[in-house]
């Protein structure tokens, strides 16, 4: 009995607790994604709260080349909010994930870097011990909740989708994040339709140097290939990629009258619907790049 209690206590203690890092784009352009994540994860037994007081991750792609100290210190400012709350960090945006994961790794492996970061954090009365884990939403779903459980429990949605993993999802050599993303989509919908350009960048980083190239040679090439497949939605998890797609869709419509009418949605929306939430529970109809009415009609068929 004592042993059993100890095991139960151990399990309880081992259950991860997460602080959801929102980043810049999700709370301001994808409220439906933020809401779907925060409402569906507790249904799956995930202990999640907001990572409050967060600021821009910041963009490692910019700051590493300008001044590495800024990247590490501003990333630490976000990480320490979770550390103070006794939680690990959970991120959905691939870009924010890479920024925070890599910064945390550097600080856990290099005491001098951590010391330097704490020197600067002290100017704001803050301190970071690098005692948190940074995990992707996909890892939380696939590993913590379990892909087998999701495959078993989820209501298969009667739609065909294209998927956009995003470059930074390929951070690990074993490609496990891309595999998780693909398998989770396959578990949730009738068909994941290949379109040949899944690996192509959305164009976000190129946008900083050449907006025309980013819009026409990256985003639009993907849009053309996806439209040709006549899918119901384009699914992603990366807020950075969504930001680029949203910008490109608006620019193409204004400049060329080009209409990308495939709704760009977040994986968590599919998960939420599959686990019984209604589209209006998480504001699925509002602030979209394309109307989602037809998609919702299909999703609500039982």
């Amino acid at each position, binding site marked *: 009995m004592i042993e059993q209690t100890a095991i139960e206590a151990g399990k309880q203690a081992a259950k991860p607790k997460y602080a959801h890092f929102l980043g810049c784009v999700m*709370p*301001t352009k994808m*409220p439906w994604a933020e809401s779907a994540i925060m409402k569906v994860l507790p249904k799956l037994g995930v202990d999640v709260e907001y990572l409050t007081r*967060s*600021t821009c991750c910041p963009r490692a792609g910019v700051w590493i080349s300008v001044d590495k100290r800024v990247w590490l210190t501003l990333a630490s*400012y976000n990480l320490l909010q979770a550390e103070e709350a006794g939680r690990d960090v959970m991120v959905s945006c691939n870009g924010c994930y890479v920024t925070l994961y890599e910064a945390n790794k550097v600080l856990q492996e290099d005491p001098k870097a951590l010391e330097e970061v704490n020197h600067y954090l002290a100017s*704001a009365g803050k301190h970071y011990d690098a005692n948190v884990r940074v995990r992707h939403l996909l890892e939380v779903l696939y590993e913590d909740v379990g892909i087998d459980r999701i495959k078993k429990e989820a209501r298969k949605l009667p739609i065909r989708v294209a998927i956009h993993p995003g470059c930074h999802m390929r951070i690990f050599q074993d490609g496990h994040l891309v595999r998780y993303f693909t398998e989770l989509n396959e578990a949730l919908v009738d068909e994941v339709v290949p379109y040949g350009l899944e690996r192509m960048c959305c164009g976000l980083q190129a946008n900083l140097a050449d907006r025309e190239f980013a819009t026409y040679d990256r985003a639009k090439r993907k849009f053309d290939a996806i439209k040709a497949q006549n899918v119901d939605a384009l699914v992603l998890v990366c807020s950075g990629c969504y930001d680029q797609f949203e910008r490109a869709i608006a620019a193409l419509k204004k400049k060329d009258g080009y209409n990308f009418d495939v709704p760009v949605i977040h994986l968590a929306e599919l998960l939420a619907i599959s686990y019984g939430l209604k589209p209006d529970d998480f504001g699925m109809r*509002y*602030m979209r790049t394309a109307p989602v009415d037809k998609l919702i009609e299909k999703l609500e068929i039982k």
Partner: protein
Amino acid sequence: MKELYPWRRPVKIPLPSSVKPQLIRHFSIGLLYPVTDELIEARKKANIDPIPPTAHRYHEAVDDIQKIVRAMDIDKKMGLDLDKMEYKFNDRANGH
């Protein structure tokens, strides 16, 4: 290296104009995008708090970020006046 190339000097490359306004937003509101009326409505319809629980709501986080940036002297290196939120050396890039 200095012995081989005695005339070589570090080059100061200006920040790309596409990055400058982003940094002003980062250091003035903490994040890249502001909260708009349209967003407040959409967040209400999504059944989440109208103001995100980020630096948008906790303004002290912006003060902290500015203190840290000043401590690193990165504002001076970028030529960014944090009080006025203006770049000192290129007026055309200010806020555009």
